[in-house]
């Protein structure tokens, strides 16, 4: 009886572990590498961030604040190849609640076949990036959105 319980426990653990591995089985380095190609030849790598999401029946969101310096050139890149569901990426020039906050860039996953998105800001001190993941019935599916930024001085 004890042995059976042990086997059941081990099997359950195996199922949980393998399902977790399967759900997050994406190569974030490869996703970044694809974006790095978009920096060449003029931009240097500056920073990056990966947001992992698990689809839910509620709408989800995430915000990233990215500082940039005046009079320099920047390239903001997003890779959504490992995000199978709908998403929205918006970039604002000011934080929430600020006067004169403007959307500088917006893209909706359901309206495009692309998975690499590129934005080059002209003038801003900080970029406020917002991801919105709509509610879905595909609960439990995991994915990620990769953000990467390059800069060019002078």
């Amino acid at each position, binding site marked *: 009886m004890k042995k059976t319980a042990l086997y059941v426990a081990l099997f359950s653990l195996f199922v949980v572990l393998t399902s977790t591995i399967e759900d997050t089985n994406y190569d974030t380095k490869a996703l*970044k590498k694809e974006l790095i190609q978009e920096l060449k030849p003029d931009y*240097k790598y500056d920073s*990056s961030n990966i947001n992992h999401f698990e689809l839910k029946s509620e709408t989800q969101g995430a915000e990233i604040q990215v500082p940039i310096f005046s009079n320099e050139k920047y390239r903001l890149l997003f890779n959504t190849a490992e995000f199978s569901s709908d998403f929205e990426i918006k970039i604002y020039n000011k*934080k929430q609640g600020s*006067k004169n906050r403007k*959307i*500088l860039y*917006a893209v909706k996953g359901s309206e495009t076949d692309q998975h690499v998105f590129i934005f*080059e*800001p002209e003038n801003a001190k900080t970029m406020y990036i917002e991801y919105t993941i709509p509610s879905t019935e595909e609960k439990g599916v995991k994915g990620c959105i990769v953000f990467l930024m390059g800069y060019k001085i002078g």
Partner: protein
Amino acid sequence: MHKITIKIAAVVIATSFLAACGGNQEEVVTEEEVIIEEAAVEDDTEEITYVLPSPLQIAELFKSSGLDYIGDLTNSVDKVDNYNSKYDQKLNYGVYASNMAYCIMNNQTQESINYLAALKKLSEKLWMTDVMGSMGLSKRLEANIGNEDSLVYIMADLQMQMDDYLEENGMGYTGSIIFAGAWIETMYLGAKVNEAKVNPKLISRISEQAIILDILIKSIKQNDDDNEFSELLTDLETINSHFTGFDGDSDEEFILSDEAVASLSADLTTIRTKIVGE
């Protein structure tokens, strides 16, 4: 989630489609192409991620504004064995990375190699050997000695390797502490070079760092559930007190007064000495 009221939706899209692998097309959009203005946005419950710039970018900005080389300003590599706690090792990894960038950008080849050796030692102590080892950094640096542009690109690669490593190992907070060490050192170098010869361009770049400091403090606080970094946060708040008057939402340029630069320099020196030791 956010409820957005769009006041004006005048969207002018001028897209350029680039051919890409696998038939995918990429759309490059620049800021002036999208003009959607919106009113205030409601609520915010989601967590904010603060992305810090690479210390290399800040060093390059300072250099392009006239950060001259003064030999004895950087931290001695002889002190590398003095840093025994993980906290000191992380901060001084940042300090040495900043010193290496400063030397590379000023063609100080031997000094750069010495700092690379110090970084290697600290990365071993921090169990980050993969960061250095996986990219054959030493060989690439040696092969590119004298070529400042290539060396700067190699340093950018090093930053990327480190970000990957910290991300893969769930050590994002370590990146903030390393960045804090690098940022304080770069600010110290900037302030000291400016003391030797007043440079308005450099002062402008130093003033601009107010936004980075604000984000750095928020980033460390977010990862400091155990109050492990309270001393560092106090020091950063001390530096922040010199940036009174800075408004991240304002479109006007913020410039520190001569008095503020002098007092900032004094505090940076004190805090930097605490980090690197006497």
